[in-house]
């Protein structure tokens, strides 16, 4: 048996979790299947679509390109955690109001990526927002409404009128 499970301890959305995990299990499958946190989605499984994006020790990462065993001892934050703390409430509201989601498949990762984009570049204009979101695919909206929603939040956070 070459695939022996290992003991993994992770802080997920502020709560400690300990599980036996097979080395070949990706972080996003661990979150979805073992912890039943299904807000992080799985699209391409090779880093291209962005649907699996989560935060590990504060850094935005692809959940499909990190093994769950690599997160041992790390802090993992998912859309469930960000939604619960209210950190992205304004983004969520803007997405809803401006129809920046249809099926919602891309939305959790889009919100995490938008949050990181605005953290790094609070004054981002539409072009820079578009560039920052270019690693996240949306098959429904055509992106326009998403860029508008993120831009509205950027302005609101800067205290500018919408």
């Amino acid at each position, binding site marked *: 048996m*070459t*695939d022996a499970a290992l003991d993994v301890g992770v802080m997920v959305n502020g709560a400690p979790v300990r599980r036996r995990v097979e080395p070949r*299990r*990706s972080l996003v499958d661990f979150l979805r299947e073992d912890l039943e946190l299904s807000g992080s989605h799985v699209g391409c499984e090779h880093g291209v679509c962005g649907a699996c994006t989560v935060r590990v020790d504060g850094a935005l990462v692809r959940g499909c390109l990190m093994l769950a065993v690599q997160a041992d001892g790390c802090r993992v934050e998912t859309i469930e955690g960000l939604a619960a703390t209210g950190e992205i409430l304004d983004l969520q509201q803007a997405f809803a109001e401006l129809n920046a989601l249809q099926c919602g498949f891309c939305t959790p990762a889009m919100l995490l990526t938008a949050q990181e984009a605005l953290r790094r570049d609070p004054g981002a204009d539409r072009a820079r927002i578009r560039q920052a979101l270019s690693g996240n695919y949306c098959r429904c909206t055509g992106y326009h409404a998403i860029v508008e929603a993120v831009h509205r939040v950027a302005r609101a956070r800067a205290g500018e009128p919408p």
Partner: protein
Amino acid sequence: MDAMKPAPFTYHRPGSLSEVFDLLDHHGGDARILAGGQSLVPALNMRLATPTAVIDINRIPGLDGIRLTTEGLHLGALARQDDVERSPLVREHAPLLAQALPNVGHVAIRTRGTIGGSVALGDPAAELPACLVALGATVRATSRRGARAIPAGEFFRGIYTTALAPDEVLTEVVVPRPGPDARAAFDELARRQGDFALVALAAACRLSDGVMLEPRLVFAGVAGTPVRATRAEAALAGRRPEAPVLEEAARAVAGDLDPPSDVQASGPLRRHLAAVLLRRVAARLGTGS
């Protein structure tokens, strides 16, 4: 539901290089080193790679530094691409890398992806290898047999093929300190932001009274390895980056490159794009940005 896709492997998390050497000895060619995982894990997920052992080097201390010595700027193998891009030391002493790195995938790729991983992989369209060749950098590798330094210009041997031996670990890359007259510029053409480049160009030279000295023009995406455009370099050497000179160099570059055709772009299109990039990038050598 079984969501496992990679073939089974054992996972090892050594705490030192000597443990890595033991593991490489023990597993032979069936082991793979895992750094940022941004190229290896996709290959595992698609079962293009089916190692029996994965050696995760992420927790080995001392491999992720970014520091300046009299020798130059040292980038540890585990330095994340995102940290290198934003490092003030890199912006000051290797601005070419800070210019090029935003083109490598996306933020969520670069937070994990490492300098060593990109160099060890040797992807023909990768930005970093071309930059390191343009800057005259050195690649350092260590094995049980000892440490050695390999000039970047001799490191890349073919598509996904490098000078690294199977028992070696890439430990750092050293970029020589630029003189006050050093200039460098980078640009690429890709289908979308974050995609691998169709053609990329990393350029460096010294600029003395507006004249380009020792120009180095290194293209990615046009062959199995980064390619120096020596005819175009000769057309620039000792001259000012003015329109007629750039035109001459752009014509010369056609003789330097014989790019392949693939689903992304035809060879003739790549050669055309190389000339477009050359005009843009060489013009910037004169302005210092």
